[in-house]
């Protein structure tokens, strides 16, 4: 006789862990399956942890979670080939506890989160890949794994299996991801002494800096680069939409290599020892690309549900929040002794709609389309801005009025006045 659980959670990333933890704490019989050797061993992120989402689940996480540095300074750079123009925001308010966001190393963080899940009472089994969902007519009744031989049954299954979500595709819940709705990011981690990082980034103690980058580093592709400070390491990476990679002849690792060689970035990495190279897809299609999120006996959360706010580089917080909502929906229904039917699980969608998750995604729903259709944001504008700064700041005997005229003429020549105004209008509409 196969064992039956109240809930099976597939995947031990942020959404799966948030769901399993919440469910187990309420006393439900929870099985969580993870294909990695340990939770975190298959998971990749930049990585920034936003405290708020986790704090709502584990209020005292700061006392024990493996955190790297709390972020006190955010730098935004627009890069040309040999320069950048940027905005930095640093505030001592961000250096006062409780801190708002942290850099983390996912393999360590996810392992810790999973320990909390197990302490809460869930059964977590690793090294087990779920191969398909077990269906009874149109209802999901359990999962088939590659290990235990037999089938495992549950009243409801939460798919938190990440961006590729093969299970949802095999079951026909949603179609294959379109290359225009997903970014490929490649990343390296470089180790160096703590003092070196603190000197290079003007830091003390456990404070940290993040740099987000756009411009020529992506060779005209829609994408961004990043550099984050950990305690004794830096992570550096670049990501672009797959639909753009598909039309280019540059490999992702060459793109990363070229970015690391940029004269503004190379000195920050100097002397570091590279210890891991990773790649990961980020579902950036936004609101319009979100698949159906629930059905008869199933719900889908986190990256698998395309819940990523690409504009604000937020994903893990949407993942945790959605995992939490999925769990709360089940807890409510079980308390009311109602089945996990499509009709009843609609509450999950409602919770997402009423929260920042869907509100933010809806707000930026037109953004991916605008950036796809207007590559000047990643090519011409970075050049124009950098050249304008160069012209104004270079002291060469030319008067400033003439310099301004030359800059304006350059802008008009590169992108007609109408083009400039319409770009500003498009962005304003999309941000509104």
């Amino acid at each position, binding site marked *: 006789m196969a064992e039956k659980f109240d809930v099976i959670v597939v995947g031990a990333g942020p959404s799966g862990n948030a769901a399993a933890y919440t469910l187990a704490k309420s006393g439900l019989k929870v099985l969580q399956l993870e294909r*990695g050797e340990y939770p975190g061993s298959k998971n990749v992120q930049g990585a920034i942890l936003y405290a708020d989402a986790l704090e709502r689940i584990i209020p005292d996480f700061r006392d024990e979670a493996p955190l790297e540095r709390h972020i006190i300074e955010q730098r935004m750079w627009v890069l040309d080939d040999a320069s950048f123009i940027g905005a930095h925001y640093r505030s001592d308010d961000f250096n006062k506890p409780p801190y708002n966001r942290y850099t983390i190393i*996912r393999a360590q963080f996810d392992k810790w989160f999973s320990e909390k899940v197990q302490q809460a009472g869930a059964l977590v089994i690793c090294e087990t890949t779920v191969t398909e969902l077990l269906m009874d007519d149109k209802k999901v009744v359990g999962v088939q794994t590659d290990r235990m031989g037999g089938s495992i049954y549950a009243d409801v299954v939460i798919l938190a299996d990440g961006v590729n979500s093969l299970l949802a595709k095999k079951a026909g819940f949603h179609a294959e991801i379109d290359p225009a709705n997903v970014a490929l990011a*490649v990343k390296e981690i470089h180790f160096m002494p703590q003092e070196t990082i603190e000197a290079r980034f003007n830091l003390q103690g456990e404070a940290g800096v993040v740099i987000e980058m756009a411009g020529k580093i992506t060779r005209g592709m829609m994408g961004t680069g990043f550099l984050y400070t950990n305690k004794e390491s830096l992570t550096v990476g670049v990501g672009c939409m*797959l639909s753009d*990679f598909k039309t280019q002849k540059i490999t992702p*690792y*060459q793109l990363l290599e070229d970015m690391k060689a940029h004269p503004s970035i190379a000195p920050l990495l100097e002397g570091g020892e590279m210890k891991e190279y990773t790649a990961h897809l980020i579902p950036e299609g936004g609101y319009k690309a979100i698949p159906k999120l629930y059905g008869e006996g199933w719900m889908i959360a986190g990256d698998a549900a395309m819940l990523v706010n690409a504009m604000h580089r937020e994903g893990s917080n949407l993942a945790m929040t959605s995992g939490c909502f999925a769990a709360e929906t089940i807890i409510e229904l079980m308390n009311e002794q109602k089945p996990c039917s499509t009709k009843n699980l609609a509450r999950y969608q409602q919770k997402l709609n009423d929260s920042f998750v869907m509100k933010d995604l809806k707000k930026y729903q037109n953004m991916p389309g605008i950036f796809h259709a207007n590559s000047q944001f990643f090519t011409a504008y970075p050049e124009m801005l950098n050249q304008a700064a160069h012209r104004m700041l270079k002291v060469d005997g030319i008067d400033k009025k003439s310099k301004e005229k030359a800059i304006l003429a350059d802008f008009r020549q590169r992108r007609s006045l109408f083009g400039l105004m319409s770009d500003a209008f498009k962005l304003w509409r999309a941000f509104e």
Partner: protein
Amino acid sequence: MSLKIEEKLFQNRYRVDAGRPHIQIRDEEICAAQCQTRQCTVCCPAGCYTMEGNGRIVLITDGCLECGTCRIICNDHHNVTWEYPRGGYGVLFKFG
């Protein structure tokens, strides 16, 4: 500056499921004869796909980072079968 992807992958930890590749090319003829771009040879971040002189694509999944790129970009021919490795196998991230 060009580089060998092997030097990057060398830093990673893998547990290879010998003889059981989790990704396969469905029909080699489609890559050789019908596909114009063979973009898998460019886009795969682990360089798992290489093209031989006769236009044949060779896939070696040992260095795979399990991202899913090859499956998604092959949307003209749908010529890639892509599964996760068996539990516990494949890339094992030390840091992620």
